[in-house]
Structures are given as C-alpha cells and as structure tokens.
C-alpha cells in the first residue's frame, strides 16, 4: 500500500487542518444538538467546502441522523465521512485515452496553479508507469520563460517538447505538436497553455481556438481536457470550473498543492455542483508527486484517525 501511505502522508496536513477541528468537536462526549451541527458546519466552511455545500451537507447529516435515531455526538463523524465521500463520486475516474490513436490532452487553468509542473509529472506517469510515448507542446507562448520551464520538465520526464517562439500563436504550436507527435509515432500529446483568468473573454476565445484546431487535426481531440486547480483557492474555484467549461469541454480536474496547509475542500462543492471528476492530485514538488484521485481513499485519508 505504498501509494496509500504516500497519499496519506501528503494529505496529513489536510487531514490535521480539516479533521483536527472536526475531532475536537467529536472527541468530547456530547449530545446531538443544534450547537454541534453549527460547529460541524463551521469546520466544513473553514475547510473551504463553501457555505452552500456545507449547509447542504449538514442538513443531510441532520436528516440521516434522525432517520437512524442517532443519540451520541461521536456517531456523527462516520456519517459525515460517508456523506463527503458520496459527494466526491465513486471510484477512480480514469484518464480518457484514445485507444489505438493519438491521445490529445489539453491542460488549462488560471495563472499560477501549477499547470506546467503538473504536465511534467503527468508525462512521467504516462511514460514510465504506463509505457506510453509522450510529446509536450509548449502553447504557453505568453508568459516569460514558460517555454523554458516546460523544457526543463520535459527533460526530467524524458519527453520531447515542441515549441515556437515566445509570443507566437499558441494554436499554431498546438498544430505543430500534433504534426510532430504523428511523425514520432507518439501515443499522447500534452498541450500546455498560458494561465488565463476565466473572466477574460479574449483569452478564453484564444483557448477555444486551440481546442478547435486540435479537434480539426485529430478526431475527437482534445480527448482529455484537464483543468488544474490550486488547492489554496477558495470558492472562486467553482467559478473557474464553470467558466472554463463554457469554453472547453473540461473532462477532469487536477488538484495541486495539497501538501500545504490548504484544505482543498472546494472540490467537494465542485464535484457536487459541476459534476466534473477530480482525476489527479498534486502532493509535492517531486516528479512522482502526482497521484490518481480516489474519492474513497481521499475521504478516508481525510477523515482517518
């Protein structure tokens, strides 16, 4: 269970932060009353789960506690675990691969969430763990030195990087990426894009164009559009998911920086309201610090004693 241990270690801080509070509430022998529910709601809000989802969760918790005739405060925690796990979906959501053809993965997100780093880790995972040949396309032609950054990660992961000059048309780089991937007989093309705030219409249009070009060159592409979210982000992550989905068909979320003090609870709200599965979590800066997201293990590690 090396993976589980590592997941747990990475999530330790998350657990301590979120569950520390829940446990304080639970550890004392208490009766189930309004105050207890309020404190649970507070703990969820402090974990960035958000007011709306926290309120809903606690309402559901009340209902089920009543149904089951629970009397002791310490019976509520297992029930809350169950509820959160339910919200996170069932089972590991696999990466969408284009069996027998070139798979195109488009990676998008706002500035500074860790797109390029996640791509480096993902490339290593696909090449080493799954034996696929990966090509990277540096379509972040806007941010200074973004191309160099991707090249370093490409080298570390052993994947060739296709790049154009800084400031060039990102859709053209994506196009070249497809061409090179085909020439090299690669299995997967991962396209890095510039960070963009989701409320900037012209930048979102540019992203739409990249996706369209990919779709024109490879049928069904992008097969996977990963939205990278920073676990320190609060409720704005919901808005990010919503608006990116309006432009590109987001098929999965990569949640990064879960090894800090941030709680990442906003994914509970996201899977609940946007129905986009979390597929990966980033738990460190090493090349192998990207883990598949397993809702049950995530919830378990989150609530483990």
């Amino acid at each position: 269970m090396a993976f589980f241990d590592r997941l747990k270690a990475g999530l330790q801080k998350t657990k301590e932060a979120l569950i520390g509070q829940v446990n304080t509430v639970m550890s004392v022998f208490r009766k189930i009353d309004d105050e207890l529910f309020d404190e649970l709601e507070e703990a969820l809000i402090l974990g960035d789960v958000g007011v709306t989802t926290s309120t809903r969760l606690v309402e559901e918790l009340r209902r089920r506690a009543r149904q089951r005739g629970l009397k002791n405060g310490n019976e509520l925690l297992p029930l809350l675990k169950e509820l959160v796990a339910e919200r996170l979906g069932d089972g590991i959501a696999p990466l969408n691969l284009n069996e027998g053809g070139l798979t195109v993965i488009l990676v998008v997100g706002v500035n500074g969430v860790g797109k390029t780093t996640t791509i480096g880790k993902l490339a290593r995972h696909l090449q080493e763990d799954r034996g696929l040949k990966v090509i990277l396309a540096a379509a972040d032609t806007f941010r200074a030195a973004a191309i160099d950054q991707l090249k370093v990660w490409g080298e570390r992961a052993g994947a060739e990087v296709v790049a154009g000059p800084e400031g060039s048309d990102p859709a053209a780089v994506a196009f070249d990426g497809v061409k090179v991937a085909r020439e090299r007989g690669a299995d997967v093309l991962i396209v890095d894009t510039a960070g963009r705030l989701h409320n900037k219409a012209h930048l979102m249009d540019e992203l739409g164009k990249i996706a369209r070009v990919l779709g024109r060159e490879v049928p069904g592409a992008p097969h996977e559009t990963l939205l990278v979210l920073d676990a320190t982000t609060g409720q704005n992550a919901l808005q990010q998911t919503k608006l990116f989905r309006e432009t590109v068909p987001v098929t999965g979320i990569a949640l990064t920086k879960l090894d800090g003090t941030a709680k990442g609870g906003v994914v509970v709200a996201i899977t609940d309201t946007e129905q986009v599965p979390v597929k990966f979590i980033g738990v460190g800066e090493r090349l192998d610090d990207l883990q598949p997201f397993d809702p049950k293990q995530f919830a378990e590690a989150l609530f483990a004693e």
Partner: protein
Amino acid sequence: MFESLQERLQEAFKRLRGKGKLTESDVNEALREVRLALLEADVNFRVVKSFVNRVKERAIGQEVLETLNPAQMVIKIVYEELVALMGGENVGLNMADRPPTIIMLCGLQGAGKTTHAAKLALKLKKEGKKPLLVAADVYRPAAIKQLEVLGSQVGVPVYSEGDQVSPVDIAARAVEHAAQERRDVIIVDTAGRLTIDDELMAELQQIKERLKPHDTLLVLDAMIGQDAVTTAEHFHGKLGIDGVILTKLDGDTRGGAALSVREVTGRPIKFVGVGEKLDALEPFHPDRMASRILGMGDVLTLIEKAQEQVDRKQAEEMAKKMLKAQFDFEDFLEQLRALQRMGPLQDILKMLPGVGAQLKDINVDEKELKHVEAIILSMTPKERRNPDIINVRRRERIARGSGRPIAEVHRLIKQFEQARKMMKQLGGMEKMMKRGKMPRLPGGGFGGLFGRR
C-alpha cells in the same frame, strides 16, 4: 447562484432600505445575509464572525434605529467597518533613510512573486528610482530566466548567479553589486514555498537576517480561500512581514483575502495587481476598496487613471469644447486613444458607481474601439474637423478606406452627433448646477451618502 459580493450585499440592504423604521430583527436579518455574502467571498470564518458582531453592536444602538434613515445608517456602519477592517488608509513602501532600500518578496508557489517584482521595479523606475532586481529563486525551473525577461521588458537590470548558488549568498552579493552600480532600490524575488516547509522557511529567515530588508512583502493570490489566514499568519510569525501585495484582483474573485489578512497580521495591503500588463499595479486604498465592494464605484481611482493619461490643460480645453458642442472627430480620436491607454474598458467601467454589478455578464469588445479608430482615420483632416460635410459619397469612401461596412460608418456619425447634442445639454446643466440646483443622479442612494464624507 453565483452573484458577486457586491450584489449580495446590495440585496441585503435593499430590504432594509424600503423600511422607514428598523427593528432589531430587521437588522439581524440583514446581517445574516451580510455574513453569508462575506463567507461566500472567502472572508475567513472567524473574521466574519467578529466583523458581524462589531456591526451589530453599533447598528442596534438606539441612535441608529431612531434616525430618519436607519437603513443608510446601517450601510454607513458596514462601510466604515469594512474600511477599518482593511486598515483605514493606504500605506506605501518603507523606504530607507539612506539608500539602498531593500525590498524582499515572499509567498506561496504561483502567487505571482516574479511578475510583481517586475511590476514593482517598473513603478519605482517611473518614480525616478534606480531599482535592481535580484533572482533568488533557484528552485523553480526557468524562474531566473523569467525574471531576466521581465527585467528587460521594464528596463531594469537583473542580478543573478544561476541556480547552483545559495539564495542567501546571491542576495548578499546583490547588495554589494547594487552599491557598485549605484542602484538605490533592491528587489529580491524568492522561490515560492509552503509555510510548513521548515527548511525553506529557514532559508527565508537567513536571507532576511543577512539583508535586513526595509520592506518584507508577502505576495498573496486574491483567489485564496480560508487558507489565507493560515498562510499570512505563518509567514508573519516566522519571518515578520511589513505588508502584502494582493495579486490577480482582475479576476472575478470577491477578494475575501483582502478583508482577512490585515485583521490577522495587523499588516497592511500595500499594492494590488490588477492585470497581466507590467504597469497593472495599483496602490491599495481601503476606503476605495470598500466602495467597490458595496457597489459605490471607485471614482477616485478612475480620476487618477485619467490624470495619468491626459494632460490637465488639454483636458480643460477639451471639456470647454465639449460643453460648447465644438467637439470634433479629432478630439474624439484623441479621447479614444487616451481611454485605451487607461486599460481595458471593462475595468474602467467597473469603477463607475452602480455599473459594476450590472456589467458582470457583458463583454466589452475592445475590437470595436479599433474599428471606430479605423473609421475616423479614414476621414480626411477636413472631415474630422467639420463632421457636417460628410455626405453619402464621402461615407462610402470612408467605409472602403477603413474596411468597415457603410452601416457602421452611418452609426458612428449618428452616435457622434447624438453625443454632441448631449454634451450641449450637459453644458446647460453645468450652468444650472452653478446656480445651486443639483440634479439628482440616477441610481443614487450610496453616492449621496458617501459623497459627503
């Protein structure tokens, strides 16, 4: 479901406003909405709690409930408490009595340190300083290259020693280098780090001990959630910060972090980053921010922005012309360009009172401005100065010249004429105002109350 903080708060107050007399439960109900609005905006849970209590204490006092317009009094209290929460007034950089001034930036990964090091350098350069950027992020791939590129974009030298040297030594030698080169402000960019990473936090402490910076700034992403407080507390506890730069405020975040960090660290937000361009850095004004949050607009910042772009004398002349309806296409073109220099139109409009919330779903197409410009540029100078001579044949030529459909040319000229007419009326109104008859501005409410502060 996802309205802005502004909208939520206005909704909460609208209910109060309809009432002549307020009961304690009216206030409580409104404050419950305020609480939810703040929580959804990612203001820290504990900060919200104490904030709402403070407002409640003041709002339920006798003098408020019995005033003539209790609703406005409550809004005023919220406004004042918001301003107080964010620290009252703008605080600038701590500058050394004897140069060089040393500024150190720190923060989590991806907060925007490198970009804001360059923005800060550009700002200082514009103020006549001679800054030096120091590349002390030796961990993130290509971080040094990024700073070097940004440095050349803003025309500020960058000191770097590659990524194989300890950041502590780089920073220390950079100070010597600055002395030789007579640079008077040193801005040190450090690697992003987690607050629980003891090793890297110790490295920051060492840099700080060696350099004794005059200003240690925490760079914080405005979209951060409840963790804002933990992050700020940890950086402050382990390092001692003097202020905060809040970045990415041009997103649609409701900026709850802005309301939390000052409360928990006692340190002010000094600057906010409002765009990807390197001049998109603004001083932080708590009172203006509170106005923006409450949907009262930020006319002061707007005026300052305009002043940066328009020469005062020119502006006065222009205003005179406008009011006399002598305004022509040449003036229009000049204004159009000044407007474009002020930044994205959408951001500018948001600063107008009452416009922000209404604008949230509308996209202002910057291209349209370009089209207008093209049409005007296809007019002869004579046509620009005497719009009245532009007949149908001239219009056809202008349409061909600018590559725009003729309907667009018609529309522009028509709008221009209407605008001229409106300005003439405004001219009349100005005289009226001078005689003491203030016309009521539409959508008032807030404006009337706070305009007199």
